[in-house]
């Protein structure tokens, strides 16, 4: 297991290395250099040249890259020209909002997808299954931005069940905080639930057809025990990988949802950063987001191995 974790960490770091190179070059090749942007209307050629000197933009690219990576590791991610604050501070400020949004959304998605997926498999080709599959199609087909707006108008504005915009911090109580992200979390969940239901349904169907289910019949075990202990256990592996991927997807979903609901999270920050062409902040955020995705993937792989004795004892699957 330890050697597996080390291997995964090494491959994760390799991915991050390539991402850092790509980020570095793409952002440097974009028209308009950081010094000019940073000074804005006050920029005279002399001042720009001076700032370029200070920012190290005159150095050869490999030295610039080296300094940047060195700073990343020492925790100095630079400071944003737009906000005038440390990149790290900005990210840490916004992070709880996005994490809470993703967590609440997952708490909705996972039980819902398991219940619907299992029911749909157990009652295959019956009305429960038809309804579940239609809902799945609908969830996939409805654009999230549209759904977000409809929900906003109906549940927040008309019925007043939720705040129309904004985020309530943990200081005002965890429940108030959750309540403030609940509607966006539901929107995010609807977009994510379809693929998970589908994979749970198909894993469950294949598990129900396995011969070990015949043994539960021969042993005269009650249906619920057979389904929960045997069928579900056999069907739990594939959904686990999908859940990992969906956590990563949620970051993308968060950009849209946070903007519509005016939540001050990572997604909103990312969009503002791109709009304002805040290059230092942008490269910091790209590194941060990709690291998060790589980390989630490594954790998923570890969970996958822990949950699956076939791989743990299978030998040559590393």
């Amino acid at each position, binding site marked *: 297991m330890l050697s597996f974790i080390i291997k995964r960490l090494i491959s994760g770091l390799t991915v991050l290395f390539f991402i850092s190179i790509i980020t570095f070059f793409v952002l440097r090749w974009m028209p308009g250099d950081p010094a000019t942007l940073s000074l804005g209307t006050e920029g005279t050629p002399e001042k720009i040249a001076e700032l370029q000197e200070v920012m190290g933009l005159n150095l050869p690219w490999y030295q610039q890259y080296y300094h940047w990576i060195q700073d990343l590791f020492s925790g100095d991610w630079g400071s944003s020209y737009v906000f005038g604050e440390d990149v790290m501070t900005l990210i840490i400020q916004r992070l709880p909002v996005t994490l809470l949004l993703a967590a609440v959304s997952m708490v909705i998605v996972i039980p819902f997808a398991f219940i619907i997926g299992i029911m749909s498999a157990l009652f295959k080709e019956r009305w429960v299954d038809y309804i579940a599959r239609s809902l799945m199609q609908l969830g996939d087909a409805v654009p999230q931005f549209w759904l977000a707006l409809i929900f906003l108008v109906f549940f927040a504005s008309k019925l007043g069940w939720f705040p129309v915009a904004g985020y309530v911090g943990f200081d005002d109580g965890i429940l108030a905080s959750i309540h403030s992200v609940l509607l966006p979390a539901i929107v995010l969940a609807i977009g994510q639930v379809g693929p998970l239901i589908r994979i749970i349904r198909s894993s469950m169907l294949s598990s129900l057809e*396995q*011969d*070990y289910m*015949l*043994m*539960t*019949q*021969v*042993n*005269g*075990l*009650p249906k619920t*025990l057979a389904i929960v*202990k*045997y069928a579900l*256990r*056999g069907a739990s*592996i594939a959904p686990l990988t999908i859940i990992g991927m969906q956590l990563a997807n949620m970051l993308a979903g968060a950009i849209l949802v946070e903007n519509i609901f005016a939540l001050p999270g990572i997604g909103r920050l990312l969009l503002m950063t791109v709009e304002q062409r805040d290059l230092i902040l942008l490269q910091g955020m790209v590194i941060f987001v990709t690291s998060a995705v790589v980390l989630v993937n490594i954790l998923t792989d570890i969970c996958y191995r822990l949950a*699956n*004795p*076939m791989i743990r*004892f*299978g030998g040559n699957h590393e």
Partner: protein
Amino acid sequence: MMEKLLQLEKVSIDDGLGRALIKNASLTIFQGEFIGIVGESGSGKTLTVKSALDLLPDHLVITSGVRQLLGKELNGLSSKDKRRLIGAGIGFVPQNTVVFLHPMIKIKYQMIDAYLYHIDNDKKQALKKASDLLEKVGIKEPKRVLNAYPKQLSGGMQQRVNIAMALMTDPKLIVADEPTTALDTVVQRQVMELFNQLNQSEGVSILFISHDLKIVKQFCQRMYVMYQGEIVESGETHEIFTNPKHSYTQKLLSLIPTLTNLSMDKFG
């Protein structure tokens, strides 16, 4: 009179589209018997037995006939009663050893379920019984096997686990569906000896499905021969082997390789 454990009377099964798979199969097993069902692949052996244990896939239909298990008519029972009757009264040893055990659940948690549900909801007792039975089927380190996942065991070990598992509820009848197919000859012999011992010393009836005529000849007192969904011949094993009546049985028996015809083939 000896107790009838299993009886099929003129059972016919079709595939739901009107095509007959089993035609008028009748079969009886008394207490203490060791019975064989032989026939080539696809002759309907497994299907016939599955119908007796109410294990047919949903799309197959029993069109006629009576099925009795441990003195009870299956059609008259609720599905819960059927489950209890079969789960507690019959042990089943499957053919394919790998997939019948759940690959992701430790052996001990699979072995004790039927005991906990049908006999006594005492986990400690159940585990002790499982351990004793594993020892009985010739496993030297029952503790290790109980804590293992199926993949950590060899094919022969898995089949022993299957047999021990079938014995957890002290069944009167064990149905073994080609239980030695995937095993090498040494393990095959050990497994058959085990069935024989259960039959001889504990009076457990065995219904043994096989296409290996030599094994059937050696162990079974009575046998049924199946061909294209029908039972074409039945009777005492030695009687059928010495005096086969049906042309299919005659053909089947002539295919058994013996030392004499092997050497004749070789030396012409």
